[in-house]
């Protein structure tokens, strides 16, 4: 078994059995459900609004070459510098080179999953730069030395007592159980760091082709500060983040906030078109944008799953996913957790090693219903399963399903098999058979009836 799968199975099993932690996650999400429903109720037609949001992304992604070209030419006209990275390694090299060129010492970052994807912090720290995550959740996860648990709510699994201890240990602050006070500790600690940093690194939620602006969504104001105070601004973005028109944001920004966090609008939605302009009093002297592929074109080349590039990383699919809620975000072992992570990780990191995430789903479809841009998430899990069984079938699966199909193609054999199955069920239940053993560990089966439906029907209708 591949490592990633073995680790997943172990972690998922342990976490699924941890009732306290599951209750904690459920409680933490409780407020989200209420607020989301309140906000959704303000939409006069949420379902049709989803149409508009998904079409805005669909039309950009399906014309990616042209839209990206237009974006880049407008962005460059505004005075920013564009860099291209085919993969994670190239992106890291570009960013390290910029840091070296500007003789940076301190770097402040705002939350950006794309930088997680390329493990940028490790690379920067290895090169000797001090890097601070400024988003509260990311800051806490950085101190914990742990990956984000949820790509929108990075430390939602950590209890306040643990955060207080963490701050006492690393920042020397007095213990407290008030979320408010804990937040203020981080606020005070980070203020000077923004001022002292040479480079601010952010992500981008949208690249607006028409105007050459990048749009960044956040609640805390840390991205605003990160892009305001340091003299260099570097943004890292996947190439799929484009939209055609500024006007598309009129739908995408509020829906991202409502679907993902139950807000009317995220607190700060900021458009950056370039470095400080003539006549402006502050802002960075240089603005670098790294546009990265890193397997996105591989997803693009799969027309069935191309829509997974519509993703605006709102997090709604995680929030409603029973798998996510029961195994937790860390068990995935991926940058992107939850349904969207299970869909795209096999494309980003290899189907053979990551198909188990697509298999670990009851296919309930809650994610697909929640997705504001209508990604066909749970059906893509099925498609990944299909592709995986073509690419690297397991002998057991082949034998099982060929055998099963052999039987169901022959009604007499099916009836006979059924009769034997029913007759021996009391015994079978006790044997450590594949599937049966796993079922019986926690659940009963109904008592097998003496006669099948087909037998009774025949007897009734003779």
């Amino acid at each position, binding site marked *: 078994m591949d490592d990633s799968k073995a680790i997943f199975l172990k972690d998922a099993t342990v976490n699924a059995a941890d009732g306290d932690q599951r209750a904690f996650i459920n409680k933490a999400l409780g407020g989200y459900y209420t607020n989301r429903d309140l906000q959704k109720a*303000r*939409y*006069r037609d949420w*379902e*049709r*609004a989803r*149409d*508009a949001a998904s*079409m805005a992304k669909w039309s950009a*992604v*399906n014309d*990616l*070459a042209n839209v*990206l*070209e237009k974006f880049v030419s407008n962005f460059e006209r505004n005075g920013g510098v564009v860099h291209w990275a*085919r993969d994670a390694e190239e992106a890291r090299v570009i960013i390290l080179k910029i840091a070296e060129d500007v003789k940076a010492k301190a770097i402040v970052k705002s939350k950006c999953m794309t930088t997680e994807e390329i493990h940028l912090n490790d690379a920067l720290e290895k090169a000797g730069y001090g890097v601070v995550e400024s988003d*509260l*959740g990311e800051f*806490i996860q950085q101190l914990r030395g742990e990956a984000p648990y949820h790509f929108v*709510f990075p430390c939602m699994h950590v209890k*306040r007592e643990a955060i207080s201890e963490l701050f006492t240990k690393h920042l020397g602050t007095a213990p407290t159980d008030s*979320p408010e006070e804990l*937040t203020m500790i*981080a606020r005070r600690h*980070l*203020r000077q760091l923004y*001022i002292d940093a040479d480079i601010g690194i952010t992500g981008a939620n949208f690249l607006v082709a028409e105007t050459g602006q990048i749009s960044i969504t956040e*609640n*805390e*104001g*840390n991205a*605003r*500060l990160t*892009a*305001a105070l340091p003299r260099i601004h570097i943004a890292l973005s996947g*190439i799929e983040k484009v939209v055609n028109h*500024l*006007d598309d944001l*009129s*739908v995408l920004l*509020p829906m991202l906030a409502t679907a993902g966090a139950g807000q*009317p*609008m995220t*607190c*700060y*939605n*900021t*458009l950056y*078109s370039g*470095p400080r302009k003539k006549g*402006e*009093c502050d*802002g960075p002297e240089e603005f670098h944008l790294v546009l990265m592929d890193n397997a996105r074109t*591989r997803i*693009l*080349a799969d*027309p069935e799953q191309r829509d997974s590039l519509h993703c605006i990383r709102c997090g709604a699919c995680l929030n409603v996913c029973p798998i996510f809620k029961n195994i937790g975000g860390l068990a995935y072992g991926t940058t992107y957790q939850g349904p969207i992570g299970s869909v795209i990780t096999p494309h980003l990191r290899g189907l053979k090693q990551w198909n188990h995430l697509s298999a670990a789903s009851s296919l309930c479809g809650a994610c697909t219903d929640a997705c504001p*841009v*209508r990604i*066909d998430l749970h059906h893509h899990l099925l498609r990944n399963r299909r592709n995986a069984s073509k690419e690297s079938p397991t002998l057991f699966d082949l034998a099982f399903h060929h055998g099963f199909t052999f039987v169901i193609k022959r009604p007499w054999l099916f009836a006979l098999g059924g009769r034997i199955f029913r007759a021996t069920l009391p015994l079978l239940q006790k044997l450590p058979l594949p599937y049966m053993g796993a079922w019986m560990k926690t659940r009963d089966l109904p008592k097998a009836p003496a006669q099948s439906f087909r037998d009774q029907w025949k007897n009734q209708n003779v």
Partner: protein
Amino acid sequence: MSDARSDIFARIREALKVKAPKPHLKGDGAPGKTSTVAKPWLPDGGETAEDSLTILAEQLAKLKAVLIRVPDHASAAKAVAELSVSKNWKKVAYHGHDLLRPVAAALTCENWEADASFDKQRLEGCDAGITTCESIVAQLGSILVSSTSSGGRALSILPHVHVVIAETSQVVPDLGAALALVKARHGTDMPSMLSFITGPSRTGDIERILVLGAHGPKELFLILVG
């Protein structure tokens, strides 16, 4: 080796040779300007100016932003001066704008035209920042500031309190209208930063419990003239 840019574009062009189906839509997916097409489905921003003001007031209240309506600019200056006293502000930074200078002049505490001699360390020490704005979105309770309307990038985010002084005529019904106005006003010469501010800075990162004032302002006042 070919360069990364051409490689990526070649991959994209190759990938797009096969068409992808449209998403499963509820409606017919007829093309058109997004905000126009979606207007009847999105949250209401009001049909009349009066409706919009009502919706705006509701939204700001839910966001825990404070709306103060005043009849004229003199009263706006007076309202800010009162705030500065009741909140015990020691230092206030403001954007150098004709409408804001009289407001600053009415303050009894130390005040400073931040964009005239920008200094981030000094700004960090200010209790409040006073700015104008581009527009206000009734539908969502968002205030659009820009690096030109609001004294650069930091003034509206670094001080602990943000005060916006605007006129009722700046209120637009919805986000689509605000974005259209931005394009009409700035065309291809956009301010380097435009930011929709929707309530005071907030976080829910600790146990998903709402805390105001994560990194940006803890308090947001909108003083609406007229």
